[in-house]
């Protein structure tokens, strides 16, 4: 196998192993909680006999490792069990929420990633200029404020004072695409403000780091204009750290939006997770947890692979 394929397949394998480990940890975590599903459903007043019978029916009398394997096998086929709160299949429950979460994440990412990288490039190009300083101050300001605070500020000004956008981002299957974009603009903007700073500052730092390299001086002494030096000579060599920080922020957009969803009552996975934890709906908690872990791991593995591919030394063997 060529070394590059070996490197990539080892990253993929590592990702799969990590996901497996996380699923096991989650299972163990839920096992450690007092009470079980049968107890939850039947309530405190149930007799030991009915509990035992119900456990046998649910398969809870099996040893833990067998139940884990059963759950894992079912999950692999898309069956995450039944929600205790709503009695609906967890997979069905998840699917609409998942669509909403992905919609919001993509909405924010499509705007935030290009803007952040562009701002990073420009602030590296005009280093220490007024532009650079104001962008940095703005980005740091946005990242320093907790996200719910940013959200409430946006609601206060753009929604209550100006009346431009709705305070609540309620969307459902009936909303058209344009309508959904309009309704979820405020949560998306909140997320954009939160993630831009990180990506923009890393882009700037990575570019500036590369600008000290002799090949940058060489390019300038060939008469290459400054913007071209930054985009064509510095950026390709600064991709690895930028890719990593973008992946981290994309993961945050999917996994870390709980607070923002709650503020805007946006029907996403975060809301679902909060509700499920509150009502001790373990199958849902488990499924959402597994999905979040999977997202995180997938994006990180993807970032790893893209970083590897961005390095000509690894792409083209000697």
């Amino acid at each position, binding site marked *: 196998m060529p070394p590059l394929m070996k490197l990539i397949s080892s990253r993929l394998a590592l990702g799969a192993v990590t996901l497996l480990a996380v699923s096991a940890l989650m299972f163990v975590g839920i096992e450690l909680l007092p009470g079980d599903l049968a107890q939850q459903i039947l309530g405190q007043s149930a007799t030991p006999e009915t509990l035992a019978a119900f456990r046998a029916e649910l398969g809870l009398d099996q040893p833990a490792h067998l139940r884990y394997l059963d759950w894992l096998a079912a999950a692999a086929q898309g069956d995450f069990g039944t929600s205790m709160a709503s009695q609906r299949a967890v997979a069905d429950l998840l699917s609409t929420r998942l669509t909403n979460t992905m919609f919001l994440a993509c909405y924010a990412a499509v705007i935030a990633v290009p803007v952040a990288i562009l701002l990073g490039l420009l602030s590296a190009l005009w280093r220490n200029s007024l532009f650079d300083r104001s962008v940095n101050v703005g980005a740091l300001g946005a990242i320093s404020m907790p996200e719910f605070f940013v959200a409430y500020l946006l609601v206060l000004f753009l929604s209550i004072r100006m009346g431009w956008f709705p305070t609540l981002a309620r969307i459902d299957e009936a909303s058209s695409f344009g309508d959904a974009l309009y309704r979820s603009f405020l949560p998306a903007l909140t997320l954009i403000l939160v993630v831009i700073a990180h990506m923009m500052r890393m882009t700037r730092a990575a570019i500036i780091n590369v600008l000290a390299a002799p090949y940058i*001086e060489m390019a300038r002494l060939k008469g290459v204009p400054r913007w071209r030096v930054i985009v064509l*000579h510095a950026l*390709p060599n600064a991709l690895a750290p930028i890719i990593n920080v973008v992946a981290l922020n994309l993961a945050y957009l999917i996994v870390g939006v709980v607070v923002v969803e709650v503020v805007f009552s946006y029907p996403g996975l975060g809301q679902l997770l909060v509700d499920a934890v509150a009502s001790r709906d373990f199958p849902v908690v488990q499924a959402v947890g597994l999905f979040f872990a999977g997202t995180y791991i997938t994006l990180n593995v993807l970032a790893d692979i893209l970083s590897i591919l961005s390095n000509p030394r690894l792409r083209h063997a*000697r």
Partner: protein
Amino acid sequence: MSKLLDIRGLRLEAGPKGKRTTILHGLDLSLNRGEVLGLVGESGAGKSSAGLAAMGYTRGGVAITAGEILFDGIDLAQASTATLQDLHGRRIAYVAQSAAASFNPAHRLIDQFCEAPLLHGTAARAEAEADAIALYRQMQLPDPQQIGFRYPHQVSGGQLQRAMTAMAMACRPDLIIFDEPTTALDVTTQIEVLGAIRDIVERYDTAAIYITHDLAVVSQMADRITVMQHGREVETAQTRKMLEAPKADYTKSLWAVRALDRPRRDTNDTETVLSLSGVTAGYGTTKVLDGVSLDLPKGRTTAVVGESGSGKSTLAKVIAGVLPPGEGKVLWQGKPLPGPYQKRNRATLRHIQMVYQMADTALNPRHTVRETLERPVRHFLGLRGSALRARVNQLMELIELDPATFLDRRIPELSGGQKQRIGIARALAAEPEFIICDEVTSALDQLVAEGILRLLLRLQDELGLTYLFITHDLATVEAIADQVVIMQRGKIVETGAQHQIFAAPKSDYTKRLLASVPQMDAGWLDGVRQRLAS
């Protein structure tokens, strides 16, 4: 006819306001069309800054504070960014010291070649590519049709340097600045690069400023030489005249070929302190040392000579116990020496010490000289209190640095030569019998290096030390070695007494290596190229 380049009263200053240091104190320099000017000096002489300033370019923090730089009538010191961008690459080009670092690792060689012609509109892509291939051929690069389509890491250092010269030629500039283009190369590679550069500069009648610290090299390349020191011109003359009759004292001191008078010592009249037999070592599956056998005579200097990749530094690592050998035996005073240093006893560790190439990185910059020296004395000899202080003072006297002045300085406050002396003192602190010197003078200027070599020889006479001296510099070998070992690709090519190797080398590789050392004679390059060709 007017001059191509006329620099008058150029003054360069660096640093923030109030703490400015002057890099060039009013330099005058001029260059005719097609003329090659050699700019010679030791590090810190301002020769690189002068070369870059000839392009109207200064590095970060450096500013042109006075003078004019007239390039074909245009004052580059006052020129706008747009004017400079138009001239750079098209009429003035630059060849950097390290081609490996100066080619962008993300782009193929030919893309980097074509960038300037496309940008300046001197050629279309297809023409530029065809021209690149033609120039690669003229620079005698292997496989000129295909080499441009490789990435920099896929091409060797000497080839990259030639590709960079080809790149500088892309727009057929009037002037090229060569900034130490062969300093990072092995001597046998250097010859090829020097020859290719000179051919192409002559062919297109390009004017050039050739910056180097190596007099022998510059005398091959330049029509005229300017010697610089501390940001000032010392003297300028035609190359032959400068070689035959240098005027300034500083120039004469540079010209004086290393003359360390030293009696010839035999290597077979003393016992063997360390011996290797059939040693093989490497990293992973790559073998770097392949069946190396060697005896080191006590109280003598054995020089291991080889080009980069020959395995000479790996040999040092095996002896020091950093890299255990895969096969073969190492005997220390007749007894087997354990491979990894962790398995060696304290007495053995004490007796084998090492001095490194880069004193800058080998010494902890947070420590004072006293801390640097006290530690090994305490560790190996167990001295405390006044005995410790006395020993440290004594070490400082051994390396000819005044204890009162230097002991409480921090490492960064020392000059390069002083740092290397501390490195030697640290090795001596253990009272060793044997010291491995790994390229200890290659990062130093010639005069400073000579001082270090004299010190090492004196210490050897006084303390009866055995040295293993690793170097790629044959002049150093001639100056201090008793026994010489020539290495190539992990194998020993030839071993012998110093005078034998230099007077009558046996292997072809040794002959080629010796012939490749530049000589202070303007006709040397032509002569050696003819000999190597035939």
